[in-house]
């Protein structure tokens, strides 16, 4: 049996991209279903933010078994930031981390993200895309903060859908 590495990798690559694509499209299809069911008076942004909150809460819950305080708060915070990054990388984004100058502060930079493209394709306003990402990121912290008895926040400083080239978010300890 001959093994052609290029053939195997390109096959995997194609399927991975198709899977990425399906994630985005499935979300957009369900968004449309939710809006259809909600009726003409529903505010699409409100519906989407509700979905984003649910998604964020569920993601946060799935991280609880993996985040680990044993090596102290700094290591824990990097673990949290890496979990954020991995969540988007798995969807096709490129996300880099950088420690902030202040203690307990990390910057996350999305150099590339597929979601604005999906939004454009399905006619979703760019600002809704930004606000939904924001909502997901913040909702993740809801359970994480309570579980570890901490108070962290994440806020958006720049956003690709706003034409700023990258999405830049600051994850930091409040107070």
């Amino acid at each position, binding site marked *: *049996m001959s*093994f052609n590495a290029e053939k*195997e990798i390109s*096959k*995997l690559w194609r399927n991975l991209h198709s899977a990425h694509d399906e994630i985005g499209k499935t979300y957009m299809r369900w968004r449309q279903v939710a809006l259809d069911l909600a009726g003409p008076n529903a505010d699409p942004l409100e519906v989407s933010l509700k979905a984003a909150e649910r998604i964020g809460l569920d993601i946060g*819950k799935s991280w*609880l*078994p993996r*985040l*680990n*305080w*044993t090596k102290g708060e700094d290591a824990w915070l990097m673990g949290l930031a890496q979990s954020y990054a991995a969540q988007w990388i798995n969807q096709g984004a490129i996300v880099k981390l950088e420690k902030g100058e202040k203690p307990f502060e990390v910057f996350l930079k999305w150099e590339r993200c597929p979601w604005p493209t999906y939004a454009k394709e399905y006619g979703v306003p760019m600002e809704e895309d930004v606000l939904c990402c924001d909502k997901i990121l913040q909702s993740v912290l809801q*359970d994480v903060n*309570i*579980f*570890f*008895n901490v108070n962290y926040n994440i806020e958006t400083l720049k956003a690709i859908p706003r034409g700023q080239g990258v999405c830049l978010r600051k994850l930091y300890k409040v107070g």
Partner: protein
Amino acid sequence: MAKQLFEWDYSKYPGAKKYPNLFKPIQIGNLIVPNRIKYAATEDNLNDHQGFVTDADVAYIRSRAEGVVGGLCFMQGVYMDPVRKGQGYVGQAAAWDDKFVPGLKKLADAIHSEKAVAGFQLMDCGRVGSVEVPFGHGPSAVPQRLRIFRPMHEMTKAEIKEMVKQHVDAAKRGVEAGFDILEISGIVGYLISNFISSYTNRRTDEYGGDIRGRMRAVVEIIQEVKAAVGQDIPLGIRLCCMELLDDVRGNTPEESIETYKISEEAGIDYISVTAGWQESIVPVISRDVPMGSWLHLAKKAKQNVKVPVQMAYRLFVPELPDKAIAAGELDIWEICRSMIADPLMPKKVLEGRQEEIRHCVACNLCLARLFRDAPMTCYINPLCAHEHDPKYYPQPAAEDEKKIVMIAGAGPAGMECAYVAAQRGHEVHIYDKRELVGGTILEASQAPYGDDELMTCVNFQKTMCDKYGVQFHLGTEVTPELIQDEMPDVVVLATGPVYSKLEGAEPDDKLFVNVLDVLSGRVEVGKNVVVWGNRKPGIGVALDLAKKGKKVTIVGREKSAGFDVNPSFKWRYMIYLRQNGINAYNDCDIAEISDGVVMVKTYDGYLFPVPCDTVVITQREANDNLKDVVQGEGIQLFVIGDALVPRNLSSAVHDGYRIGLRI
């Protein structure tokens, strides 16, 4: 005035001479217990789903009460609230109403019938409870990290007061039912431990804050229960000495010890020392944790409190607690899983029949069953949870039905079947082509992380075979000619599995080796090893080789590695595979082997190469050899263990036992 409920004289027993510290009395509160042995409260899921005690549970407890030979025998912890938030197991007994008292009385009577001290445990499962309702209760609404558990509601002060009252009312019902000693369960993530831990108690009122605040509810329970039941009923508590929750900001060891001191100040009569929560990511009681590893916690407790200190947690042999008691590091030997595996374990110790103990192999199948709402069972004790059913006990065969039984294979299936059949009066001959008994367990026990303990099962079976007169023919392979020469009435094939052949593999090809030959050291393997088969034998040999410095890759058809290992142990193996740098390619096949490379094919057709000097075959199939010969001769045939369907040690033992009863 201290009282002793039943008279026991151990002086004539060999065990009392060998382990004098285990068989001397101790005073707990105003009660004198004649020995230092306790069957610790253990959930078994055997009760009615409304909380009423069943005959199955009574029989289960009676057998354990017989085992403690006059010591303490605790029934499982009861939940105490009618809303059932405190219920952690579908078959957990309840005590929230007087209607439960008659059932509880049956348990106390069963324990007393064996002249043992009857213990009653109060157990609100808190964070890991509410098995039948959508929300749990706790001091704070800290989210669950395991999805299996329910979301939490923070208890109001009124609810805390009500919870304390529920403990008091349940304690009174326990005493009314006839129990002699009470215990509060504050371990592994149950409600009391939730109040105590900084991880789960974030309250800012008087029930939270520092460790004294977090202990307030516990102190109230201790004091109010003591006041309600009087000084003649001792009250103990089970508390974590080490939560092992550093990863989620749990209590410090100092805080844990403080809980012992506070409990003692509040009037507790003994402390049972435990370690870890269900949510802990550190192994505590599985086979990979060496026996006696946690004794240092009991010693620490002894240094900090004056009341008696008890402990279970991997004290599977009497030598360990006997020495610890002698050294002043422990007062009472708690036993839990060891008496699930063998209810009469301490009785056998006393009677000098230690060889006849069926030792627990610390697989945690019992726990895995409970968490899946199934009745208790034991990996190696087929009678467990069937104590009430006469069909599960060996009955003597009628004189005209006694048979000559030939068993092929002296592994765990064959030997289990052999001694049970012999005990019933059959003439049993067991054959094995090897000179040693044990079958594949001889090799399997060479795998790391405690698998040497698997041999205890074989040793027990050999003792029982000898006791009941099973005749061994070691070094003798069962062949068609032998069957035709002997013409027994029954043949039991317990020959173990046959190992799968990979396509293209020649019998004399040195690239392919058998798992048994590798584990026993009969063959050498190369630097890069591919283990073919991702069930337990594959994991065992992979870990063994990785520990010897080999680069190991597992390839197997099951969707996850360790598919045949119960979930309460499997997570350990997954961590060990990672720690030892072993990749497991599951849901995969070996497509081709050539030039130092194995071509792995995923379930959906992707190919990738893995460097390989040796392929270890662990994939097994049923063994049909001799079946046709036996049936052709008209001899009654049974096939058991891996020869029937390759599975695990448990299946071998259970198959053997059942067929031993049927012959």
